[in-house]
């Protein structure tokens, strides 16, 4: 059914208002405060990732995500004058990514601490086992060797060489 002229006019007016609103929003360049928020979020995320790394966590994915966030921040700085809407979107994405890194750092640190604990326990356990084995060999080595020798050669018959 064809639209009546009145409805066509209303729709056109709505579209114009929507475009103007969108245009006004796009014309607003990202502010220094918005850039500072993203920069601070990335800084905090880096500190969290750094601490997770110090705890022995695997931070390679966190580093990759932080670099993507930094690229978005630098792109936003470059395009803020020409494409402010895209700059604002990039800043928002970068801040979200930084927040994600901060959140993921906690679990990375936890995994690192657990892995480190296992390494410590394995190392100390291994060293203790080596010391105990050495002491046992020193104290009982002769006796064990002789018993083993007799066990291995139990069926041998000794004949006089003459």
């Amino acid at each position, binding site marked *: 059914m064809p639209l009546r002229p009145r409805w066509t006019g209303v729709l056109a007016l709505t579209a114009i208002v929507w475009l103007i609103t969108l245009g006004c929003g796009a014309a607003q360049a990202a502010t220094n405060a918005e850039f500072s928020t993203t920069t601070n979020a990335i*800084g*905090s995320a*880096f*500190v969290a*990732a*750094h*601490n997770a*790394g*110090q705890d022995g966590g695997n*931070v*390679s994915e966190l*580093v990759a995500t*932080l*670099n993507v966030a*930094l690229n978005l*921040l*630098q792109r936003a700085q470059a395009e803020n004058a020409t494409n402010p809407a895209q700059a604002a979107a990039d800043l928002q994405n970068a801040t979200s990514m930084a927040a994600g890194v901060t959140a993921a750092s906690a679990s990375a640190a936890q995994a690192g601490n657990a892995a480190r604990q296992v*390494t*410590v326990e394995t*190392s*100390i356990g*291994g*060293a203790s086992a*080596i*010391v105990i*084995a*050495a002491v046992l*060999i*020193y104290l009982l*080595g002769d006796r064990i060797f002789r018993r083993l020798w007799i066990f291995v050669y139990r069926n041998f018959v000794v004949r006089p060489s003459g």
Partner: protein
Amino acid sequence: MDRETAATALALVALVAVFVALEPIIPTNQAGFSELGILGPNMIIGGYPTSITQGGVVKLYCYVGNHEGAVAYYQVLVKLGNGATQVSNTTSANAPEIRSYSFVLADNRSSTFPVTLTMNATGTNLRLIFELWAYNVSTSEFSYAGLWDQLIINVTGGP
């Protein structure tokens, strides 16, 4: 082999084995360091531009290496100085910053990235100074890492 020799050999073997077992948890006391290098347009040490016209583009590559023992957040600042600009391993250059590059590097990793600079100022023996700054987790600020490189270039007026 007499008993004393055997006991000594056993003790030595046990000592080495204990050291090997404990090696992963023995803390190392190595001083960390970073690396900064500027490469020419062909990604080699050489072929650096020496002269360019105003508005021309200088294409270089920057190499940064992280051996600090931890993940590091670096910033390479490119400054435009002249013969009077003071820069050292302790003091950064007091010159206008024309470009900056920020990135995070994992331990024992390096990054080589392109640097493209448009030269708008003219002059002879201008110094493109590259400084490495690192994010300090204690102060939450970038601080000068004490590493810098420079490229001396003449920028002549356009045609």
